[in-house]
C-alpha cells in the first residue's frame, strides 16, 4: 500500500468500503506527501493536519458502521476562496490574510455531510484574478510537470495539488477559465458547471454573474462524483437553480453512438500553438473513432469575448470588492486621520496590483458618462455570444475545442503584460459569459512533455453530455497512467 496517493476516488472508495485501508491511513499518506513534496510545488496556503486527522477518524467510524457515501473518508483540497468555518480563508490576498469565516460555504456543508476529509486550503491568484497563480500575495505555485512553469490560474493550487497527488481531488472556482485552464496545464480533469448548478453561498465573490464552483480531479468519473456531491438547490444563493441533480457518475458509462460534437472554427486560429492544435485535433479524431459524429460549426462572435469579459468582470468586481473597507473584517491600515483616508490606505496596502488594475478598469467603465459605451455595449455583445452557442446546440450535443492557446508558460513570462495574460483565457471565457458548463480533459502532451487539455462545452444543465464525451475520450486515450514524478 505504498501508493495510496496514486488512487482515484473510485479506487479508494472500494478499498475503504472493503476495509482494506482506513481513511486515517490514506489521510496520513497524503499529509506525509504534502510535507515531502509541497515545499517544491507550493500549492497549499494552509494545511489543516489536525482537523483532517479528526475528520478521517470520524469517517472511519462511519465506514465501519456501513453508512459511507461516495466521498466518506476521501482527502480533498479546497481553493482558498471558499469559506471554511474557523479556518483561514485568505483568497490569496493580504486583505484577508487573517480572515476566519464564522460559517461554512454551502459546498463545505455538503462535503461535511458526506464525511469527506479536508487536507487544507489551496493557493490562488488574489481574489481569483489571474491566469498563472503569480498574483497570490503569498507565493507562486509551481507546475508539477515542470517546476519552472506556472500551474495556470486562478485555481493553480487546486490543479497543481491534484496533479502532484497532494490531494485526491479538489474544488476550484471558475469566472473566466480558472478551473479549466489550470486543469489543462497540470494534466487533470476540471469542470465549470452550469451557472447556478452549484450554490455560491460562501464563495468569496469576484464577478457574481460569472463565478461558479467546480471540481478538479484525476479522472472524469472522480469529477462526476464530486460534482454530484456539491450540486443542487440552496435558497441562500438566489441564482442557484432548483433543478434536480442527476446521478452524474452514471453518465460515464454510455458510448457515443448518435452523439454529435461540433468543432468551432474560431477556436483554431492564429495564436493557437501548433502542438496544442495537433493534440486537440487528435483528441477530436479519437472522439470520432469512439462513435461521435463531428460537425464543423461557427461561433462568429468568439473574438469579442475577451473584451466583453474584461468590462463585465471588472465592473462586477469593482462593486463586489468595495466591501473591503477595513471595517467589518480583514486588513486595516494604520495611520489615518479620517474615514476616507482609512479606506484609501487600507485598500492601497491590502490589494495587489492586478486587483487594483481591475477595480480601476471596472470603476472607470461604470463611471458617469461611460456606462453605455462600456457596460451596456459589453452586455449586448454578451447576448450575441449566447445566441452563437444556442445556434450551435441546435445541431450539436457538445462542442470540442482547445482550453488554452499554449501549454503552461514560464514563471514571469507574462507578468508585465496584462493583455497577453488576459488572452490566455480566450477559449475559456465564452463559456462563463453564456453560463454553460465546460470541462477540460487531458488529451496529450507537447514536445516538452507538458500536458494539453481538450475542452468540451454543452448547453445549460447538460453536464451529463460533457461527462459522457469526456469519459469516452479519457478511456480511448488512456493517458491517466502517466503522472509527473515530482
Amino acid at each position: 500500500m505504498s501508493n495510496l496517493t496514486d488512487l482515484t476516488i473510485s479506487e479508494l472508495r472500494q478499498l475503504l468500503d472493503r476495509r482494506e485501508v482506513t481513511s486515517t491511513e490514506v489521510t496520513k499518506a497524503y499529509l506525509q506527501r504534502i510535507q515531502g513534496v509541497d515545499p517544491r510545488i507550493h500549492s497549499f496556503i494552509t494545511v489543516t493536519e489536525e482537523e483532517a486527522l479528526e475528520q478521517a477518524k470520524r469517517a472511519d467510524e462511519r465506514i465501519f458502521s456501513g453508512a459511507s457515501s461516495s466521498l466518506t473518508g476521501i482527502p480533498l483540497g479546497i481553493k482558498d476562496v471558499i469559506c471554511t468555518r474557523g479556518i483561514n480563508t485568505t483568497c490569496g490576498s493580504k486583505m484577508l490574510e487573517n480572515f476566519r469565516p464564522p460559517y461554512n460555504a454551502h459546498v463545505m456543508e455538503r462535503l461535511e455531510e458526506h464525511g469527506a476529509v479536508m487536507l487544507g486550503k489551496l493557493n490562488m491568484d488574489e481574489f481569483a484574478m489571474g491566469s498563472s497563480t503569480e498574483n497570490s500575495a503569498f507565493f507562486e505555485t509551481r507546475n508539477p510537470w515542470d517546476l519552472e512553469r506556472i500551474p495556470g490560474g486562478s485555481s493553480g493550487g487546486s490543479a497543481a495539488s491534484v496533479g502532484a497527488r497532494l490531494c485526491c481531488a479538489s474544488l476550484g472556482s471558475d469566472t473566466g477559465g480558472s478551473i479549466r485552464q489550470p486543469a489543462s496545464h497540470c494534466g487533470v480533469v476540471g469542470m465549470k458547471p452550469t451557472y447556478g448548478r452549484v450554490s455560491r453561498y460562501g464563495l468569496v465573490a469576484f464577478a457574481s454573474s460569472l463565478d461558479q464552483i467546480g471540481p478538479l480531479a484525476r479522472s472524469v468519473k472522480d469529477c462526476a462524483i464530486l460534482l454530484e456531491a456539491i450540486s443542487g438547490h440552496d435558497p441562500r444563493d438566489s441564482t442557484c437553480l432548483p433543478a434536480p441533480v442527476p446521478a452524474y457518475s452514471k453518465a460515464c458509462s454510455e458510448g457515443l453512438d448518435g452523439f454529435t460534437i461540433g468543432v468551432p472554427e474560431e477556436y483554431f486560429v492564429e495564436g493557437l500553438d501548433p502542438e496544442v492544435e495537433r493534440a486537440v485535433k487528435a483528441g477530436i479524431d479519437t472522439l470520432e473513432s469512439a462513435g461521435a459524429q463531428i460537425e464543423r460549426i461557427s461561433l462568429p462572435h468568439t473574438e469579442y469575448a475577451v473584451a466583453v469579459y474584461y468590462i463585465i468582470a471588472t465592473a462586477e468586481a469593482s462593486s463586489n470588492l468595495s466591501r473591503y473597507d477595513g471595517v467589518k473584517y480583514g486588513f486595516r491600515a494604520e495611520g489615518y486621520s479620517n474615514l476616507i483616508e482609512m479606506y484609501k490606505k487600507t485598500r492601497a496596502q491590502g490589494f495587489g496590483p492586478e486587483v487594483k488594475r481591475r477595480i480601476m478598469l471596472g470603476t472607470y467603465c461604470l463611471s458617469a458618462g461611460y456606462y453605455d459605451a462600456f457596460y451596456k455595449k459589453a452586455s449586448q455583445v454578451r447576448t450575441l455570444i449566447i445566441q452563437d452557442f444556442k445556434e450551435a446546440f441546435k445541431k450539436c450535443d457538445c462542442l470540442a475545442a482547445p482550453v488554452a492557446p499554449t501549454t503552461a508558460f514560464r514563471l514571469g513570462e507574462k507578468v508585465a503584460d496584462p493583455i497577453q495574460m488576459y488572452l490566455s483565457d480566450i477559449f475559456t471565457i465564452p463559456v462563463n459569459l453564456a453560463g454553460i458548463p465546460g470541462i477540460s480533459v487531458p488529451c496529450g502532451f507537447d514536445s516538452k512533455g507538458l500536458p494539453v487539455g481538450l475542452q468540451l462545452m454543452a448547453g445549460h444543465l447538460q453536464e451529463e453530455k460533457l461527462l459522457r464525451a469526456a469519459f469516452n475520450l479519457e478511456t480511448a486515450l488512456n493517458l491517466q497512467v502517466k503522472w509527473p514524478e515530482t
Partner: protein
Amino acid sequence: MAKITVTEVEHVAHLARLTFSTEEVEAFTRQLNDILEFIDKLDALDTAGIEPTTRAIELLNVFREDEVKESLPVEEATGNAPLAEEGAFVVPRII
C-alpha cells in the same frame, strides 16, 4: 491618442477609494490605455436593438418565506473586525 489621462486615473482612483504613487499612476494610465484600446474592438459591432444580458440564466422572482431564522451571534459577526467594541465596529469619527 490617449483614452484616459493621468487626471482621470486619479479621479477614478478616488471613486474606487484607492491611492497611488506618481509612478503607479503613470503605469496604470499606460496599462489602462492599452486595455481600453483593446476593448475598442467592440465598437466594430452594430448592437442597435440587441437586448443586454445581465445574467446568463434568467430566474424570475425567486421568493422565499420571510421566516425568522437563527443568525450569527454578534460576537462571531464582529470577530474578524480590525477594531470592535461592545458588539459594534469601531471607525474614525465621521461627524
